[in-house]
């Protein structure tokens, strides 16, 4: 046990509150990486599955064209990688009871959501790296015409997907989490114009696709890389993504502790 003088020296009393909060979230994020980066769901959903899809997509590059399929590869990798982490870092901890340790600790809903979301963002960025390498291998070149726009939309997208999975994993029991995440992933792929370009879908379905964040994300990646878009103009895409992300953050941190505190 620590002596009494250390107790009064808790960092909470010395550093600005915001920094302390963030450092706690980062502590949890680093712990999660240490524990979970090699877990089966992360490996299979975060790496193997996206790679399989990338291989499939590259076969269609010739027929649909690079500006259609390359953004789709990025989008798929991001989606799967960003949503794979919460499935372990939240659901596993619910199953083995260790989530109690976080519930009993002086963390706010915001700290908890931030920490668990960081894991997904980190994996999302790894997914982007995998996509970049694959694209380069298959096409022999890499085109990013608006690098800042591209970077911002990638980061926003990984935040959005990661938050979505964290919200689901925090509020649902582990089995339901797996099912709902899978439904979410596959409908995002299908309706986000990732496997079948949105313009090729039947007319009524094209309207439905507007309800899926993945459509906006894919289009903003497309604009960042190729200076072109299919359905939504780049600024609308970015704003919609931003609004959805902020809303998810808000909902997640308001419900996180309630979901874990009966």
């Amino acid at each position: 046990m620590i002596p009494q003088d250390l107790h009064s020296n808790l960092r909470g009393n010395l550093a600005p509150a915001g920094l302390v909060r963030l450092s706690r979230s980062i502590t949890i994020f680093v712990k999660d990486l240490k524990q979970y980066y090699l877990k089966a769901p992360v490996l299979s959903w975060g790496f193997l599955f996206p790679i399989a899809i990338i291989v499939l997509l590259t076969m269609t590059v010739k027929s649909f064209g690079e500006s259609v399929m390359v953004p789709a590869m990025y989008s798929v990798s991001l989606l799967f990688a960003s949503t794979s982490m919460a499935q372990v870092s939240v659901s596993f901890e619910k199953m083995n009871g260790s989530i109690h340790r976080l519930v009993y600790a002086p963390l706010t809903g915001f700290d908890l959501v931030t920490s668990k979301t960081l894991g997904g963002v980190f994996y999302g960025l790894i997914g982007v790296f995998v996509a970049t390498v694959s694209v380069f291998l298959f096409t022999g070149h890499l085109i990013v015409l608006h690098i800042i726009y591209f970077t911002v939309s990638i980061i926003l997208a990984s935040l959005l997907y990661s938050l979505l999975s964290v919200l689901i994993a925090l509020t649902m029991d582990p089995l339901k989490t797996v099912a709902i995440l899978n439904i979410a992933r596959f409908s995002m792929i299908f309706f986000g114009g990732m496997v079948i370009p949105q313009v090729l879908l039947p007319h009524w379905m094209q309207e439905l696709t507007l309800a899926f964040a993945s459509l906006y994300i894919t289009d903003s990646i497309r604009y960042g890389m190729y200076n072109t878009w299919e359905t939504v103009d780049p600024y609308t895409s970015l704003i919609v993504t931003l609004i959805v992300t902020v809303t998810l953050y808000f909902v997640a941190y308001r419900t996180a502790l309630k979901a874990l505190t009966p």
Partner: protein
Amino acid sequence: MDGPPILVDHLLKKYGRLIAVKHLSFKAGEGEILGILGPNGAGKTTTLRAIAGALKPTMGRVLVYGMNSYKESSRVKRIIGVMPEVPSLFPELTVRENLEFLGKVYGLSRLEARKAAEQTIDLMGLTDYVEVRYGHLSKGLKRRADMSGALVHDPRIIVLDEPTAGLDVFSASRLRSIIRELMKTGKTIIISSHYIDEIMELSKRVVILYKGTKVYEGEPRRLRDILDLGKRVKVVFDRELDESFWSALKDKISSYIDDTLLFTGDYLEVYTKDPLHLLDVLKESLEGNGYSIVDIDILPPSWEDVFKRYMIEARDPTGFTFKSEGKPCSCGAG
């Protein structure tokens, strides 16, 4: 931070239609070790979670040094250390990594967390296991590590939820001796259990819960007085008693016996309020028929029996009145 370390004030918790804790009130003073005793489902964990700020009361409140444990939970959680009832550290991390991590989550710097983890490991006798993954520890060691997790940030209040449940006698007694060490540090400790002997050994005051209601609060020793179970007498005969002799003997001694616990032919164990007369009558009858007594034991009632009896009475509303705080009453007992 005004007020006692723990003040549970008309706490009521419903899960759907089930009332897990009903209008529960009690308090724990500075440096006190308070036991919460009750069978499965009595509401012990619910109460402890409410104290630790990890449960939203349906009605009532818990104040920790005057702070509302739910509404001001991040302040309250900082000064409470909880050992949950199930093993709950992170299985892929080593004991050291777990404790350093928890230290940091509770606001210690990296250096402080390392120092605190080392000191806690020493205190808990886990030095040989620091580099072992928590998931690979035996159950007894896991519980010791769990307890370390509750202590690493040097909390003022320690909440232990069934710390020894499911452990073998050696691991349990090891854990209890650590708890006794902790008691010397002047911290307020609240410990739940369904082992009455454990609560007797560790705490001076106990709250007994049954189906979410407090049925007793006070010194555990007083329970024995209230119930007045008498003495437990064990007698061993030189050989098995003849069946017809035993039925005659039974009639003769029945007025001295409150409860027959066991009879196996050459062994008798009973509760009696008058052990001396019982033994006189026994000896006389036995010797008159050529038997003899080879061993006698006169013991106070076992705590398990006290507890069981108390629970039976708590269940029977006609023979028992729920007690208010403080002095136990003997209404309906005996």
